[in-house]
């Protein structure tokens, strides 16, 4: 056998003490990815995440479609957070195409984005629950998620893949009674979310399992370039909605939740606290929204961008979501690069899992707020 291997492949040494576990892709605790874990007894000595099982080439496909037809497929990486993943692309396309957005549309966008953040976070929380063996915490958020899905269905017409944001506003206006229904559902949810603490966050077993595991210090969180809840759980005050407000986030009344501990417990708690802030933002936006007006600017057919590039970012459920669009005076973007929070947080996984116990793998892994499908794009 020749020793010359093609690039990308390598031979591995087999150690007698070390057992290599392929966690995934057909594994209930891996998501759509493979984590190659090497364990010595119960301790992980090395961890190599291997994403790519759901790589769909969204960025390549975006080079062949024009700015409008890109919308329905670019939301595919995270269908649970489809408004937020479209947001930077839409903002970038607006800047490239030179489109103004009506004031009312900006508020509708903020409401839809926050509703979607709750949908995603509840789904994530459900899976975090079942990863820790807490089946009630799987069922409750999955059920409560229906509240927001119903609201979004009312607003956009689709339950998960909304394709709601378009350059120049949103696709359609709110239905007439949306505000009442939304306030009622959000009010119910705010009562409900407090109950999560009783069953999950204040649970002594949960705290003893997740506290002080997978600690990401503040300096490491910055050095590894993590983002979103992972960053804020390590004590870094950074939320794109606050630091670089887009649309009408600068006029919204909300707090950034920062925890200092940097362990898996803090990382699992920040998105839960963020959901409460989302509810505040939704209430605030509904009250401040202009009651009438257009929600979209009419576009020219097949608009062309300039000869420039933009980099726009928003705060999604998994952290800062950047979109780098290179335009070359064509109806199609020359290059679309989505810099997603999951992919940025992935780098922390081998760093955090090294030296942990095997039993901590699910809690640390899913506390990274990592969505394999989004990371693969």
């Amino acid at each position, binding site marked *: 056998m020749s020793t010359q291997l093609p690039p990308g492949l390598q031979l591995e040494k087999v150690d007698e003490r070390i*057992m290599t*576990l392929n966690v995934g892709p057909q*594994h*209930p*605790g891996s998501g759509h990815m493979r984590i190659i874990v090497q364990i010595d007894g*119960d301790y992980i000595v090395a961890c190599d995440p291997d994403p790519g099982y759901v790589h769909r080439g969204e960025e390549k496909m975006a080079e062949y479609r024009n700015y409008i037809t890109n919308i329905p497929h670019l939301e595919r990486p995270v269908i649970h957070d489809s408004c937020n993943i479209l947001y930077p692309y839409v903002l970038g396309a607006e800047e490239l195409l030179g489109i103004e957005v009506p004031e009312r549309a900006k508020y509708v966008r903020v409401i839809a984005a926050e509703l979607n953040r709750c949908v995603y976070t509840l789904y994530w929380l459900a899976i975090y*629950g*079942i*990863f*820790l*063996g*807490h*089946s*009630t*915490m*799987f*069922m*409750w958020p999955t*059920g409560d998620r229906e509240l927001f899905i119903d609201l979004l269905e009312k607003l956009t017409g689709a339950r998960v893949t909304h394709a709601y944001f378009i350059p120049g506003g949103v696709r359609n206006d709110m239905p007439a009674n949306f505000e009442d229904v939304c306030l009622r559902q959000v009010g119910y949810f705010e009562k409900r979310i407090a109950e999560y603490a009783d*069953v*999950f966050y204040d*649970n002594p*077993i*949960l705290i*003893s*399992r997740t506290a002080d595991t997978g600690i990401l210090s503040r300096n490491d969180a910055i050095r590894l370039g993590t983002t979103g809840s992972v960053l804020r759980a390590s004590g870094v005050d950074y939320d794109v909605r606050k630091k670089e407000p887009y649309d009408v986030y600068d006029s919204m009344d909300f707090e950034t939740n920062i925890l200092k501990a940097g362990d898996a417990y803090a990382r699992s708690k920040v998105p839960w606290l963020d959901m409460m802030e989302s509810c505040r933002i939704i209430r605030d936006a509904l009250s401040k929204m202009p009651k009438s007006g257009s929600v979209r600017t009419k576009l020219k057919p097949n608009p062309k961008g300039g000869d420039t590039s933009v980099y726009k970012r928003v705060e999604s459920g998994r952290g800062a979501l950047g979109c780098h669009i290179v335009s070359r005076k064509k109806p199609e973007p020359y290059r679309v690069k989505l810099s997603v929070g999951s992919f940025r947080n992935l780098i922390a996984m081998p760093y955090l899992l090294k030296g942990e*116990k*095997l*039993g*901590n*793998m*699910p809690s640390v892994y899913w506390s990274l707020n990592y969505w394999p499908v989004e990371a693969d794009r």
Partner: protein
Amino acid sequence: MSVIAPTFRLSYFLRSILDNVFWIIVLVTLVGIPAIQIVLFYIEMPVIDGELLTPFLALTWLADPSRAVPIIKALMYTDFFRIAVFPGFGLAALLAAGTIFVERKMLAKLQLRVGPFYCGKVEGILQLMGDGLKLISKEIIIPAKADKPIFWLAPVAFVGTAAAFVSLIPVAPGWVVADVDLGVLAVFAVIGFFPIVTILSAWSANSKFPFIGGIRALHQMISFEIPLILSLLGVVMLAGTMSLTGIVESQDFFPWIVFLPVGAIVFFICILAELERIPFDLPEAESEIVAGWLTEFSGMMYGLVQLGTYLKLYAFAALFTVMFLGGWSGPMLWPPFPEEIITDGIQLGPVTATIPGLPILDQAMLNGVLWFLLKTVAVIFFILLPRGVFPRIRIDMLLSLGWYKLIGLSFINIFIALALLYAGVLGPGGMI
């Protein structure tokens, strides 16, 4: 529009049924009945009213139902009935099935959903049957490099061990499959087999996840067996006997949980760990090691392991009842047998049927079974409850819990028992 069976004809369907009926009749008459006749020569049949029970005598109950009662009574006191039906495997399996159903419905209610709902019209009562049929119809896949004989043997051995455990449990006065003088020791001996079966099945699968799961199960079971055994010693000291029946009889006035609550708590936690139930289901932690030592089991092999698990659950709950809750003892709740049925017979319109031999079971036994089942079901309920409330804990936390806290607590329990014994309050020759 799709059709499930496009070539379906009712006539073919009826013909296939008639075919089956025909062959069944042929086989029964030509093979079955002669085989029974041959077998009967070698079986010692009971004597009823001075007459040996022959098939002809057994079939006379078709003509005179009143003759059935002595036959049923005679059969009920055979060993086979005790092992297979009551209080052995049949009762345990029935309770296990009920446990699975109740677990699913209760968990569903806890989690704001409905649980099994459609199968069987009434609240999904036949769901379990459907699941069982599905498991039976699944292909059994054996890993290519598995140690096949042991891998095949493991589920059977698991059910066998669980059934052996069940056989030691006294359900009512005199109603126990194996009334061993050293019943508690026998229980410890049988419990000791579970880790062996588990590690054998895990190792023989020759796969990584079952291996890790098996090692975890081994750690867990062995480290929790010690506090489990120690926590029962207090009861043994106070009761002055190791026979389970004797222990129940020692609790006529009060159950031992009144005086030994620490032991009961330790024993309950050890039950959860031995049963691999949440929060101690590490050997089956699906987000870490797929399904632990059950990963490679498929089809009915998995079904057997599940059956064994729930038999074990029943047996442990029953053991808790026997040791701490007083087994069958309790106030008389069962109504007395109506005397007029014996004296006057049952009147159905113009016909009056007098059935000699009634009642089949006496009131004390039925009351005992009722109390035993009530207590056992309550314990099972408390075993199921943590599943809706707790996440799973980690193996190192589990081991430190088992080795430091529970063993310490069970020694405290023994000291309490000894203090009560030497103070002359309880125990053989005590005040109460």
